[in-house]
């Protein structure tokens, strides 16, 4: 089918909705990365198999849908039954027959599969009532977990390509840019640059060719929002890019996808082909004068390629080394032509802004950071998963109301945002609102949306060392301050974690950081010292404990701690068999002993002991 007028699109939308409504019940099985790893594909197959074998009342085979990430990864594999948003958590293959029989045929709720609040045991039927979901506002994630990414009709039924149709019928390119400017949308890839202004600068430059590129590199090692959007709702990214192409006058676009995300590549590729088939991509889109097509470029697994100029080199088939920023990529980007580069989430947000209007978007969030932001919550937090919140929500609200707080009765120590370019904020910053400027002022940054929670068993020095190790490995090596500076910073940081550093070393590190920040070529180096600087700013006492007392308050740094077996040991041999260096001796039902000379304090014994018989000293 080829949709060649906006009117036909609306007709088709009505048909799609009718078809969707004719399915009296829908079974949504999450195939997001978390659920998939827990075997949700087998659950999906089982639903299909059981429904094929038996004729269930009001339930057809088409009612079973695979979706992208629904968000609440900690409760996966999850199954949602619509209408009613009935949310079944931690579903097993063996539950499938029962779900069909009871919930789908008889409308009964299966109590044992419902999510129950770990604090008060309250059970929720409709997922929208669960605190994890209740406090969220989903714009860029609007379709994730709700639609089958391979089925364009699902996207159309939920208002897909309406933004594009509106742009093509009602708005001139300038007006599109005005709308985006007015909406206050800022780039979701980390920097927070105003999107409308970027588009405007690109459109103003005289050039035969202009490119639109989507940054799906998601380099922050602890973030998965972009992945979930690309996998779970690929058309929203395409639609945003097509609108941008219309606004800036481009015919060619690229999506740069990270090598580690094969499913994102597959789903985007399918979406591109479908979009071409229906006339959303290619020549004369929806019968207008707009012609635009998109190609996928697979990344090579290099963090620096998320940086704009390096990314463009990589798309052109070269080594991804950044260049100095005196020429901006909106002027000379890919193949030296004006180029708009935006993040996945930024593009996914654009169609909604067009559809609902700039004023609506401005009404959400804060005056300078409008709208919402997606985050992936991970680390030492109960409700790990994918969330989207209005800008301005405080860290505390995110971590405690949505995230459910810290598990295992431990205490909050720090929250890390912005990945290797960001920083760690301590407990007394929990009431800061999350927006671009506040987080930057506090010494961290919004980043692309990784949010890692750390409890009292985390060592800020070790976390800084971890990020520095990452950056040393990922520095492209083109400029000296970054290549050599970060390496030295890493070496000193390692010295501290070993209890071998002095306070003079710490002062030297702070001086060196200043040089790296000032003199590096690209954002990688310029922000590289941030994890160190923010931890030393907020957790200086822990740095000093390592240096002066040779102690690691978090109980992490191996050279500074000892594992000792206490008399709760039952002699179960669990720790003995897991010790990778053979440092534990003992017999069954007798107290075990750790040979401190052999022990390298990896902590494996501590992790497997179920009797709290191993102390960290």
């Amino acid at each position, binding site marked *: 089918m080829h949709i060649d007028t906006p009117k036909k699109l609306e007709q088709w939308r009505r048909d799609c909705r009718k078809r969707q409504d004719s399915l009296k019940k829908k079974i949504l099985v999450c195939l997001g*990365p978390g659920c998939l790893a827990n075997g949700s594909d087998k659950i999906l197959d089982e639903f299909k198999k059981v429904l094929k074998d038996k004729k269930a009342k009001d339930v057809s085979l088409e009612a079973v849908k695979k979706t992208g990430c629904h968000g609440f990864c900690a409760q996966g594999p999850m199954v949602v039954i619509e209408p009613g948003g009935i949310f079944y958590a931690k579903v097993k293959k063996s539950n499938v027959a029962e779900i069909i029989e009871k919930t789908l045929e008889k409308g009964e709720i299966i109590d044992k599969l419902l999510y129950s609040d770990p604090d008060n045991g309250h059970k929720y039927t409709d997922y929208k009532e669960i605190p994890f979901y209740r406090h969220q506002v989903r714009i860029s994630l609007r379709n994730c977990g709700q639609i089958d990414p391979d089925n364009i009709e699902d996207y159309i039924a939920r208002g897909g390509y309406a933004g594009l149709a509106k742009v093509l019928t009602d708005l001139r390119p300038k007006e599109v840019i005005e709308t985006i400017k007015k909406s206050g949308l800022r780039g979701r890839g980390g920097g927070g640059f105003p999107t409308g202004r970027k588009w405007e600068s690109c459109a103003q430059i005289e050039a035969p060719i202009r490119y639109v590129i989507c940054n799906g590199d998601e380099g922050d*090692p*602890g973030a*998965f929002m972009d992945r979930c959007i690309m996998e779970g709702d690929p058309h929203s990214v395409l639609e945003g890019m097509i609108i941008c192409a219309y606004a800036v006058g481009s015919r060619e676009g690229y999506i740069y996808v990270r090598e580690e995300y094969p499913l994102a590549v597959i789903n985007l590729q399918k979406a591109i082909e479908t979009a071409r088939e229906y006339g959303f991509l290619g020549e004369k889109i929806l019968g207008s004068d707009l012609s635009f097509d998109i190609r996928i470029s697979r990344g*090579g697994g290099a963090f620096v390629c998320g940086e704009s100029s390096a990314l463009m080199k990589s798309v052109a088939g070269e080594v*991804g080394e950044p260049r100095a920023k005196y020429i901006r990529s909106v002027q000379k980007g890919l193949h030296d032509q004006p180029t708009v580069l935006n993040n996945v989430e930024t593009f996914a947000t654009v169609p909604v802004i067009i559809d609902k209007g700039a004023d609506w978007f401005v009404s959400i969030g804060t005056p300078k950071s409008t709208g919402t932001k997606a985050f992936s919550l*991970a680390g030492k937090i109960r409700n790990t998963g994918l969330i989207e919140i209005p800008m301005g929500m405080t860290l505390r609200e995110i971590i405690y109301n949505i995230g459910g707080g810290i598990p295992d009765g431990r205490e909050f120590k720090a929250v890390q945002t912005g990945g290797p370019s960001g920083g760690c904020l301590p407990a007394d910053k929990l009431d800061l609102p999350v927006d671009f400027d506040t987080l930057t002022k506090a010494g961290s940054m919004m980043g692309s949306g990784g949010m890692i929670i750390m409890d009292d068993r*985390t060592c800020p020095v070790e976390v800084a060392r971890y990020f520095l190790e990452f950056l040393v490995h990922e520095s492209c090596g083109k400029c000296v301050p970054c290549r050599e500076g970060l390496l030295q910073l890493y070496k000193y940081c390692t010295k501290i974690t070993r209890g071998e550093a002095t306070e003079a070393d710490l002062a030297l590190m702070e001086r060196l950081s200043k040089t790296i920040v000032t003199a590096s070529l690209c954002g990688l180096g310029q922000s590289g010292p941030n994890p160190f600087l923010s931890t030393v700013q907020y957790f200086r006492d822990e740095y000093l404990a390592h240096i002066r007392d040779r102690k690691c308050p978090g109980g992490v740094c191996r050279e500074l701690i000892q594992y000792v077996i206490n008399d709760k040991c039952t002699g179960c041999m669990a720790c003995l068999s*897991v010790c990778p260096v053979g440092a534990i001796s003992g017999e069954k039902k007798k107290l075990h002993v750790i040979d401190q000379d052999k022990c390298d304090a990896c902590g494996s014994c501590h992790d497997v002991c179920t009797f709290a018989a191993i102390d960290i000293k």
Partner: protein
Amino acid sequence: MNIDMNKVTEILERNPKEPGAIIAVLQDFQREFRYLPVPAMVKASELLHVPLSKVYSIATFYNAFSLTPRGEKVIRICKGTACHIKGADKILEQIEAGLKLKPGETSADMKYTVEVVNCVGACAMAPVLIVNDKYHGKVRCDQAMGKVKRG
């Protein structure tokens, strides 16, 4: 090591014959052979008119490429932030001790290759261990070797 040059030709055929396609071609080689064989790189260099030195520089720049053959089972340990703070190092140590291999190494019998990766986007189930393409989440260090052997 002998490689099937027909496969090389096939891959070169299905990609555009322009210098810009070099990364895509190398990615296809990597997928097919699980490393970048020298004869394949030479052929690509000739056909796409990219100097061999540049092919080599690309091959060593990007983490996705390896210049030595990989084993039948590729064990990847995630060392992304979430996995790191949930003890990925311990998983790695178990595997290093169990297989007597360091990251990047392949066993002499070509059975196992151990690699570390930075976040595979499944942080919610940290720490993550991937055996070929199968993800294992919330891995405890005492389970790591079992998963390597079985899956």
